[in-house]
């Protein structure tokens, strides 16, 4: 019996706010700025819509990295959403770090609608980081690996 080592293809979930980052991702697309296909984007109205439950859920179901993008602080379409999101994510990430989940698996990046380049650069570096960390084994439900 030969055990074939499966090539690691990370699963990466990106939450993007509708007004800035999702548009930034669109701009990256229309500018043909590539980033790995491992990244899948979920559109949310605002970064403040991202519930820590969503992030843990992604990890539970087998995500190897979760990134959240929103408007730059001060530029939120809803004026204050990303300020709340920033605190929530800071505390959540700190907690994940505290229980031993590699900090590199979570990231927040502020990307405006004009920053297609930043969006693609961000995704490239995030994916690279996830490749270096390898499969997420610390925060996932084993049943999802079968």
């Amino acid at each position: 019996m030969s055990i074939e080592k499966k090539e690691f293809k990370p699963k990466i979930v990106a939450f993007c706010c509708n007004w800035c980052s999702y548009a930034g991702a669109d701009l990256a697309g229309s500018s043909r700025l590539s980033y790995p296909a491992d990244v899948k984007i979920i559109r949310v109205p605002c970064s403040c819509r991202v519930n820590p439950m969503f992030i843990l859920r992604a990890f539970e179901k087998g995500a190897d990295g979760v990134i959240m993008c929103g408007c730059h602080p001060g530029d939120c379409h809803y004026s204050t959403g990303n300020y709340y999101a920033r605190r929530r994510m800071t505390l959540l990430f700190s907690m994940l770090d505290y229980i031993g989940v590699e900090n590199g698996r979570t990231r927040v990046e502020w990307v405006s609608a004009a920053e297609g380049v930043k969006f693609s650069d961000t995704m490239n570096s995030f994916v690279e980081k996830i490749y270096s960390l390898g499969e997420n084994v610390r925060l996932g439900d084993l049943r999802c690996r079968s």
Partner: protein
Amino acid sequence: MYKIAKENLSALFRLIAESSELYLPVKTAGQVNFAAWSEEAEVALDILKSVKSPKDAFFPQSEGLYTVKREGKKMKVEPEELKNKDFVVFGMKACDVKGLEVLDNVFLADPIDTFYAARREHGTVVALACHEPEESCFCKVFGVDAANPAADVAAWMIGEDLYWNALTEKGEALTEKVKALLTDADETAVEAEKEAIHNIVEKLPYMNLSLEGWNGDALSEKFDDKLWEELYKPCLACGTCTFVCPTCQCYDIKDYDTGNSVSRYRCWDSCMYSDFTMMAHGNNRTSQMQRFRQRFMHKLVYYPANNDGMYSCVGCGRCVEKCPASLNIVKVIKAFQKQGGEK
């Protein structure tokens, strides 16, 4: 009757583990629970009670039932395999062993719970007599002899030795397997230990707890009693009492979507939980008082009514020790007794 020096117990465990799985009290992060033996495991035989009862060796807190896989638009159902490997549970106490009897009456009665039956069939229980019973113990009230566990193998820790006495065929079979490590022993030491245990048991504060008035016929009298309205009040509606209990047998069935399949599993449920017995039409127990009453009525009235007067409490005292609000079955029994006395 055999014996084995305590210092040789690791060798005994190693030998048992060669041919079967072995579960025994293991200390993890300061707490002792039954867990699989390994060389690294910190075995803790000198404690009286594990936090959780060892019932999950036979009735795990959660276990898979079957998996549904999707292949295109078709579904494929894969039942979970029944337990087919022998295993040994070492270090259960007399009350916990009695607890299995309670579970047997539920799971082995028709319709037979095949998952439980398979585990019972493959499991061998080595039970330890209670060297130093504690104030929370009241097993004698329920007819359990802490000094004489009625398991496949009864064992006693006395001084530097463990005494070993096979009581059933399974017990004999296990004894055969490990015979090389055992030496013959006479019963004098064991008899002395039994007497010592009995003497201590007599001194325990709950020994004189009376179950008078609690039986299968007491249904409406107890059910309608106003006392429940008082008793339940401090209850937090957590599941501690049910999850540490050796006889609680309720479970819920749930589905888990893994993305590629759906696995159906069952897991312990607690009658203290608000969605316990929640059904499509709603919940037939809407208040915590009703849920609280359910637990004790079940242990002391409903179960005896269906099982020839046998109570589904074995007096292990775990709820006495663990309830966050210091409620427990003893307080309930006493409260009714007191009320009766005043009438």
